Structures are given as C-alpha cells and as structure tokens.
C-alpha cells in the first residue's frame, strides 16, 4: 500500500444523456443499419420501375383497366398522426431529462395511444394497396416497404409501452430516464424515415 499518482474518477456521475451514453450510440448504430435497409428497399422499388411500362402496373379486370395508385386517405392520415405523435414524445423526453415523474407518466400514456393508432391506421394502408404481395414485383416491393416499417411501428410502440409499465411499477430512476430519451430518438427516426417513403410510395406514382 504505497502512494502513487491516480486519476480519481469517484465523483463522476453514473449516467449521462445523448452522445455521452453508450446506449445512445447503440441505438444510433441500429438506426444506421435500418436506414441502410430502407435505402436499399427503395432502390429496389425504383429498380423494378424500369421493368414496367406503367407504374404502378395497371390492374386488368376486363373490360376495364383500373388505375392502381394506392388511395391517399389512410396513409396521409397516418403521416399526419405520426408527425403529431412527435409532440408527446418530445414532451416525454423533456420530462425524463428533468426527472418529473408525473409528466413522464402522462406523456408516455399519450405516446402509447398515438403509437397504437398509427399501427391501426397502417393496417388500413395495407388494405388500400391494390395488389397483394404475390401479384407482381410492384406488389411485392410495396408490401415489403410497408411491412418493414410496420415492424418498427410495432416495436417502437411496444418499447414505449414496456418502459411505461416500468415507470408506473418501479418509478423513475436515472438509467431509465436515459432510456426514455433514447426511445424518443428511435421514435423520431420511425417518423422521419417514413416521410420520404410515404412520398415515394403514394405521391411518386401520381407525380411521375
């Protein structure tokens, strides 16, 4: 037991937010992976476009040929809903940073409701695609985009729900405050990545 030079780290905090936290980085890398995947899926969407004279391909139910661009009501409602859902998420993030457990509880419940509504509206979006996944390559790729994003809607909502359950049952400790802010980032990404996908899938055929 002799004296020596040390770097005393005992005063350092046990948690940190944002880019200081490993979990934030882990989430960021997950988002990088998923963004890459969506980028590739959309590249496939455009790739298939060159195999068709009309896009989306016309649906032939003789004697008529139907225009098959997907209906806009459900997806547009969902996009608006998703954009609005960022508000309770943002409030949840603020409350988590400040450690205000009551505000956290309210914001979490509202966020879960928005998430569940988005999941439900997505089911209507599936219905309003005029092809099933096995009709042609267009149907396959549109269902692929919708399904992959649907998986994130479900995962994001469930993640918020489980954290919500924890907050109600066990209260708000420092580690879970950080987790809540990371969940918010995930949710912002779910909404953000959907905007260009929505535009390409639903407006692309009408404008191109």
């Amino acid at each position, binding site marked *: *037991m002799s004296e020596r030079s040390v770097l005393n780290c*005992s005063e350092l*905090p046990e948690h940190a937010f944002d880019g200081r936290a490993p979990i934030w*980085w882990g989430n960021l890398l997950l988002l990088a992976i998923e963004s890459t995947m969506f980028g*590739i899926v959309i590249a496939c969407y455009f*790739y298939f476009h060159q*195999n068709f004279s009309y896009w989306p391909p016309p649906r032939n139910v003789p004697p008529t040929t139907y225009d098959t661009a997907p209906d806009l009501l459900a997806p547009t409602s969902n996009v608006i809903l998703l954009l609005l859902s960022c508000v309770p998420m943002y409030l949840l993030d603020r409350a988590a940073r400040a450690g205000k457990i009551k505000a956290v509880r309210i914001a979490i419940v509202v966020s879960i409701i928005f998430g569940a509504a988005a999941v439900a509206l997505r089911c209507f979006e599936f219905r309003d695609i005029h092809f099933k996944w096995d009709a042609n390559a267009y149907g396959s790729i549109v269902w692929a985009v919708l399904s992959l994003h649907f998986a994130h809607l479900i995962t994001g909502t469930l993640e918020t729900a489980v954290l919500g359950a924890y907050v109600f049952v066990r209260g708000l400790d420092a580690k879970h405050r950080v987790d809540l802010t990371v969940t918010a980032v995930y949710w912002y990404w779910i909404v953000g990545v959907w905007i260009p996908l929505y535009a390409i899938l639903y407006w692309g055929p009408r404008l191109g």
Partner: protein
Amino acid sequence: MINERSKPGKAHIETATLDVERDRAELERSWETRPGFIGWLTTTNHKSIAIRYIVTAFIFFLFGGILAALMRIQLARPRSEFLGPDAYDQVFTVHGSTMMFLFAVPIMTALGLYFVPLMVGTRNVAFPKLNAFGYYVYLTGGILLYLGLLSNTGPDTGWFSYVPLSGPDFAPGKRVDIWAQMITFTEIAALVAAVEIIVTAFKMRAPGMSLNRIPLFVWAMVVTAFMIIFAMPAIMLASSMLATDRLTGVSTHFFNPAEGGDALLWQHLFWFFGHPEVYIIFIPGTGIVSTLIVTFARRIAFGYTALVLSLISTGFIGFGLWVHHMFATPLPQLGQSFFTGASIMIAIPSGVQIFCWIATLWLGKRLELKTPLLFVLGFVFTFVIGGLTGVMLGSAPLDLQVHDTFFVVAHLHYVLIGGAIFPLFGALYYWFPKWTGRLMNERLGKLNFWLMLIGFHLTFFPMHQLGIQGMPRRVYTYLPETGWGALNLLASIGAAVLTAGVIAFLINVFWSRRHGAPAGDNPWNSDTLEWATSSPPPSYNFLYIPTVRNRYPVWTVEPDTPVVAGLRTDVREALVTHTITAAPDHRYELPNSSIWPLVLAAATAVTFIGVIFTAWAIPIGAALTFIALVGWFWPNSEPAALEAERHRSLPTGDGLSLEQQT
C-alpha cells in the same frame, strides 16, 4: 483511501494510497462467472465469448477444409466418380458458405471482441449481454447449415446462390431456404459484434487515449465494423426476399422476370454486400499485420496516419466496386467503366499499407524470425500476388475472359488466404500466450508455416493457368481431352501439403497448452495494452484502468503514469470517456451474468428456422422475441442497500450528474 476534494462531478489527478489487495479481491468477486454449466451458459465476459467464437469458427474452418479436400480429390483426375454432381454441388456451396459466413468473418470479429476492450483499456464490451446473444445466434446458423448438409438437404446453388437457379422454379425443397436463414443468423451475429466494437472503441477508452492514439488494430476493427453495418442489410434483405419468393403461400416476385421481378437485382444486392464482405475479412488482417510488424520490428509504425487513412479509404471505396462481379451481364458500358476505375484504384491504399509495412520492417531494430513474423512475410508475398490478379480482374475486358474461371478461384484464395488467413495464423501464434499463459512451440510453428506456404502456392498458383486455359468454376468434373488434368493433380497434391500444415498447427496447439514455455505478461515486448495485464487476463481485465499519454503506452509507461481509481469494485463498473479526446465522462454499470441472451437467441432461432417452413413463424416468433426482450430489459430487484447507494446521485435539481457538460 481516496482523498475527496476538488469539484464534485469531475475526475482529477491526485496522489493516493491504493488498497491493492482489497480492490483485487472485490473485483474478483464482482466479475466472476459462476463455475459449471450454468455459469458457462450465462457468462457475459467478453473474453469467454470471444474464445467461444474463435474455437467454433476454427472448427468450421476445419469442416470447410474437409469439404475442400473432397473437392480436390474429385478434381484431381478428369471424369472422376468420387463425387457425383449433386454431392459436389452441395460440397462447394457449403465450403464457400462455411468459409465466408461461419469462419472468416466471425473469427475476425472475435479477435476484435477479445482485444478491442483490452487494447483500449476497459473491462468489457459496451453491451455484454448483447455480445453473448450474438454468439448463440451465430452458433445456431452454423448448426442449421450442417444439419442440412448431413441430411442431404445442404444448399447446392453456390455460396452466392444466384436466381433463378435458387428460386422456387429450379431449386425445389428446403436446401436454399436453409442457406437463406443461415445467412440471417450469421449476419445478426456480425452486426451485433460490429455495434460492440464501435461503441466500445468510441466510448470506453482509457483516459488520454484520444482517437489519434488508438492502436492500428483497433482502427482496423472499427473500419471493419462500419463496413459490416452498411453492407449486411443488403444481404439480409436479399436472402429474405429470396425466402419469401420461395415460400408457398407467400410467393413474392422479387426475382421472377415473368411478373416484373429481376434476376439481376439479386446480383446487385448480393454483391453490394459481397464485395465489402471480402474487405470485412481482409481489413482485420491488415490490423493484425500492423500489430505484428510493430512488435517484431520493435519500433513505432511508419506512417501511422497514412495507414489509418488507407484503412478508411479502403472501407469507403470498397462499397463502390460491386459491379465488377457482374461485368459479364448486360450492363451499360459506362457503368462498367466506372467500376473498372474504382476496382483498379482501390489498389492504391493497399499499396500505401504495403509500403508503410516494408518501411517499418526496414527501419526495425532487430528482426527475430519468429513464427508470427514468418506469417507476416508470407502474407506480403501472397497478398501482393492476389492484389495484382485483382487489378487484372478489375479490368472489364480482361475480366470477360477470366471471370467465373479457376483464375478467380486462384485470385480469391490468394487474397483471402494470403491477406487474411496468414495474418490470422500469425495472430494465433502471437496471442496464444495471452490466452493460455504459454508460448507455442517455435519449431512446430516454422514447420506449420512452411507447409502452409508451400502447400498454398502449389494448390492455387496452377489455377491461374487453368483459368487462362479455359477451365470454368464450379464444375464437378472435366473432359480428359481438355488437358486440365496435370495442373489439377498438382493442385490436389498441394492441397494435401496445405492440410499437413493445418495439422501441424493443431498438434502445436494441443502440445503447447500442456508443455509450452510459460509466457508471462508480455513475452513479445509488445506495446499495446493487452500485454499490460496478466496472461490470461483476469475477468476484469485490469486491476486499475490505465491512463495513456501517447500511442505506445506499454513502451513508455513511467512510475508516475496515473492509473484510474475510484471506480466501484462491488459492482461491475467501467469508465465512459469522451469520443474524441477520451477525457473521463461518467461511470457505466455493466450487467452480471444472465440467461436472457440464450432465451432471446432461442426465440430468434424459432422465428427464423420456423420461417423455412411457414410464414406463421414470423408472428409467433415475434411474440416469443417480445417476451425474451422484456425479460432481458426488466431489471432484477436489488438489495435495498445497493439501491439506496446507487440512487444517491439521482438528481432532482441539485445540479449533479446528468446536467454536467464536460
């Protein structure tokens, strides 16, 4: 005791008295893995998990080698009847899939998982439970593939599985589906390892180890990890699309030209992953080479900055080459020209690395030709040949002659065996003493090296000529009149010599574990931090986290170099530092052993194996996965005292902790 003064919330240098015995005893207790089977299943120790990866991957290497030997026996003579086409097609498919997915990538990421935490001076990877999960998923994928092969359901459409041959029309049964899901498992494991390596290397470095001071091996692993992040999604998507095309009841049309799908799309997706994949295998090899050369030349790396920039530029350019696998398809010539240009230009950063390495050796003080250095020299010679044939293949018009021939088989083995496996064997000899506390036998090592070097060149050099002389790839036999028999026989003899080399290695491993000379902490007098702790390292890696003042901490350590004190020893705790400067930032609790990684891996297995047979596996598997994730993330209840202790710094406006800006 630690003196407590100065501003709360920051780290500060001071003089203190450390109770080494007490700290060691407490660390041993809080970091121990329970003995026995349950302890083995639930460990979150990055070193145990990495060793598992390495041993498993090496066993797959041996399996892949046996498959290669079967191929060489069949091809040694024209019209041999040793293997019929069905068996041969499964053998070459599983050989390639094993070597690429079950051996090369996992063993390189495993070296990263073992050594990145040690080299950056921390106690574990950033997400220890995730790390354990990654291994179980990898193992599942490997077992799935071999159960397929052994039950005559092995995939038989090549490791690259082109459509339409692998689609529902021409590949009946479950063979290709087994392949597609093996991909899913191994890619998840690779992505997990990549996340671990990046976050650990960015956030958990020892104080003072700024980004420009991290070892070249860590740089190589970080670049590799980023490549994994951006390359793997392409093949996960492609294999899933293939799986849904093939699944009755789903029948998507991604690759069906009759419904607007596209056979070439598969090739784009596969090679967008596939080309970075070979760099994912090669770049860790360059990290190993840099490490070994610095050690054995006993001097600092020549051109550290140039070497780092070469790694990064190889990583970037590697994503711009994939079409060179498709020069024989009807793609527009302008596109082909771009990819020819990129394919030839990527030789530049590789060349920079070779020159820096040779310069380091030349400037080295005293070179002892120990086995690891021999493998490095073998690497340089062999990889340069492979790189030169790579430039040839990058040229579209020349590629049109040698594409899909044994010339490519020669090239790929020259760059993969030369560029990655020789460094790997050098690494195994180099780090064996760190893992086991004993050095490997030098004479057996030299025998191993020479047998492998000679055997390798005897096997693969003739294949260049075979390709020029018209022998295509993936052929189970050939006509005697072609005249290919003599070189094929030579290649098969070479394969026997190469096999003898691998056997010499195995003998060396088993002998040295018992009788190898005791190694001590740093038998090679190396400069990276894994050598600043015992061999093998304790479960907590370092008794006290070191601090670092330059790139070569072990060579330049002084008695007054501070060590980190004040981390908790009663729970598993590590230090998180600033991404760029590695200034200390906060203390980070790591989990104990846990069964949940295994449970989540089981749920994943049910999902992705089930989907081979029915699409219902997705919702069922998703539900199981959800349950496993809740179990994973729902914290155990803690003893009240610890909980009180932990939450003492819970800020409710007292200005501590979370609002700190460093």
